[in-house]
């Protein structure tokens, strides 16, 4: 095993996971005020109405696809009677639909970020880094899905990439498997680890706040001292005037 293999497929992933975990814990504790979607819909609406849903629904579909393709072992899908050929067709077609949505959405969102002045002035350096990484990751992912799997000969990533990825979490890493994967897959994985390391320090933390608890909540929320809250000794009220 070369040191490059070790670095790319063991050190980098674990480093990224560590930064991701510690970063989130730190951000959650220290930056509740900065934890937001940073919506720019106030500034620009027309493009966002198309770009944002396309991008987000596509991305969520792609994340679900990664769960099915990478986290669920091929033996499990086989056990419920899905052959590799069937799986391949499903993943190529569904993946293509998702990547087209993401692609169109991303183009609109990036165009908006660059060309609409009101939005452009809100773009931070972290936003730029996020968008660069997203463009790279999504571009490579599109090439894998469309060029390799839909049109091309196909690549059974479930026999290599998936096993390596799961191995990382089972403390049983197989970097040698990843070393044999096509460069597209390698580059996709490496850039993704960078995004994961950047995640807690970027606006992407908004994804964890998807407000599912809204579903179970009564409409009106009350808060008050009669039913709530510990005292804070530092705050003393001003004396009434009258």
């Amino acid at each position: 095993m070369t040191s490059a293999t070790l670095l790319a497929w063991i050190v980098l992933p674990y480093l990224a996971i560590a930064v991701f975990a510690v970063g989130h814990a730190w951000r959650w504790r220290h930056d509740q005020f900065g934890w937001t979607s940073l919506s720019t819909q106030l500034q620009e609406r027309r493009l966002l109405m198309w770009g944002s849903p396309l991008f987000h629904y596509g991305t969520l579909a792609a994340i679900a696809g990664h769960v099915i393709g990478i986290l669920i072992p091929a033996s499990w899908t086989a056990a419920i009677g899905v052959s590799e050929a069937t799986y391949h067709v499903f993943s190529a077609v569904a993946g293509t639909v998702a990547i087209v949505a993401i692609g169109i959405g991303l183009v609109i969102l990036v165009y908006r970020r660059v060309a609409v002045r009101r939005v452009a002035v809100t773009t931070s350096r972290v936003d730029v880094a996020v968008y660069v990484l997203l463009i790279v990751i999504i571009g490579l992912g599109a090439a894998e899905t469309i060029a390799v799997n839909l049109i091309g000969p196909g690549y059974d990533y479930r026999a290599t990439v998936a096993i390596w990825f799961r191995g990382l979490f089972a403390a049983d890493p197989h970097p040698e498997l990843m070393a044999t994967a096509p460069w597209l897959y390698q580059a996709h994985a490496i850039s993704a680890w960078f995004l994961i390391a950047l995640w807690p320090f970027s606006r992407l933390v908004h994804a964890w706040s998807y407000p599912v608890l809204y579903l179970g909540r009564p409409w009106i929320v009350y808060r008050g001292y009669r039913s709530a809250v510990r005292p804070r000794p530092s705050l003393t009220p001003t004396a009434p005037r009258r």
Partner: protein
Amino acid sequence: MRIMVNVGMVMNLDKCIGCHTCSVTCKQVWTNRRGTEYVWFNNVETKPGLGYPKRYEDQDRWRGGWELDRRGRLRLRSGGWLYKLLTIFANPDLPTIDDYAEPWTYDYETLFTAPVSADDPVARARSQLTGRPLALRGGANWDDNLAGAPEHAGADPNLRGMEAQVQFEFTQAFMFYLPRICEHCLNPSCVASCPSGAMYKREEDGIVLVDQDKCRGWRFCVSGCPYKKVYFNHQTGKAEKCTFCYPRIEAGLPTICSETCVGRLRHLGLILYDADGVREAASVRDPHRLLDAQLGVFCDPADPTVQAQARRDGIPEDWIEAAQRSPVYALAVRHRVALPLHPEFRTLPMVWYVPPLSPVVNAVARRAADADPDDVFYAVDQMRIPLQYLANLLAAGDVEPVRAALRRLAALRAYMREQQLGGTPDPAIPARAGMDPGALDELYRLLAIAKYEDRYVIPSAHTETADRLAAVHTGCSVGWESQFAATASHFRANHVQFVHVQPRRPDHGASETMAAEPEQPS
């Protein structure tokens, strides 16, 4: 029955001179920051006019507030839980900055740095969003004093149901100012629209606030409020709104906008209300009955059974006493001269308005040469158009409550004039408005004399609880996760209900901590 307290405000529109002092002082205190340039917790609109943001009252377009579904159940007009969770990536009903107005400042620097020249240097307008030169085409007060009225005023949603000719004449002849703040509604659709649970009503005084640490910038509150009184801070990515100046209210002081009002037209006081009745009141089918329904959830603070229940519900004695002296209760309930803004939005708003009598009288004097402008009863009964307009604004289109309020004000005017001129006022005057002379005296004291201590009856928060009160809204996120755990059991059981969001009561879980705290100086 469960009695709670809501602070309320009544504004006497007859006295508003449209000076915008309230807007400016509020802005200086709360929103003179980057990201809130376009934000006016308090703004003063000329009526008829478009409002801010433009045409915000048109809920067919903006879908704020509540509506009844086919089975008569209350629901958010902009869609329920699922719809919101699906459209979260781009809110279909959010106004853009162009619906408000792109904020600007002037390039004052050039006044100092311009080279010597025959022409005076000019400070050009620059957008506060982009820093670029901006051609000014709108602002928060673009149609102030009916400016551009022939062009724009016809688009005022309150002119619905009036023909074009009437509309035009009307805008020539009739005008008043409408100062607006957050209504601190009993049934706030902004709170209901917030998927994060970051918005809440304070249990002790009903003030509606945004927890800045819990807001995630999903911006549904902005579209959910039919009055468009929640604003999105484009720098912080969080929602902000009128705070009812809670730090001052806690100290027993009036809000900034009230304190600095030149016309002294704002009244502040407490309202006791039955929290269990709110949902039913907001669900009344006929919009014309919403006013009575809301009056129906207000409790009479002088009633001993109400007082006893209030005590059982933990309302302090001095608050119950203050509620009895509340000018808001007096004007809205006892004398029925104040009306809520757009009750048809079904949020049960708590900032009410005494409709303006003067523009009605002036309009009569101008139009009907034979009319005696002093016979204000005649004016009130004659002026179909202004009445309909005011009714669209303050009574869901029902002319009767507006007419009744104006008749009382007219009676007050006629009665006091006779008295001031040394005559014996005719007791038939108050009788014609369904009042007795004693009531007129109280109204006179409240509306005309309007002493500071009569306008503002605000008990200070209790010192023994005030520091805890502050902790609720200074971003202290104590036990937030468990709050949802506590509320989840109410799963869809009720659409509007009273909720203890925080299971950790001072007398249980937190008691050790409290005992360990040093005593607060009182």
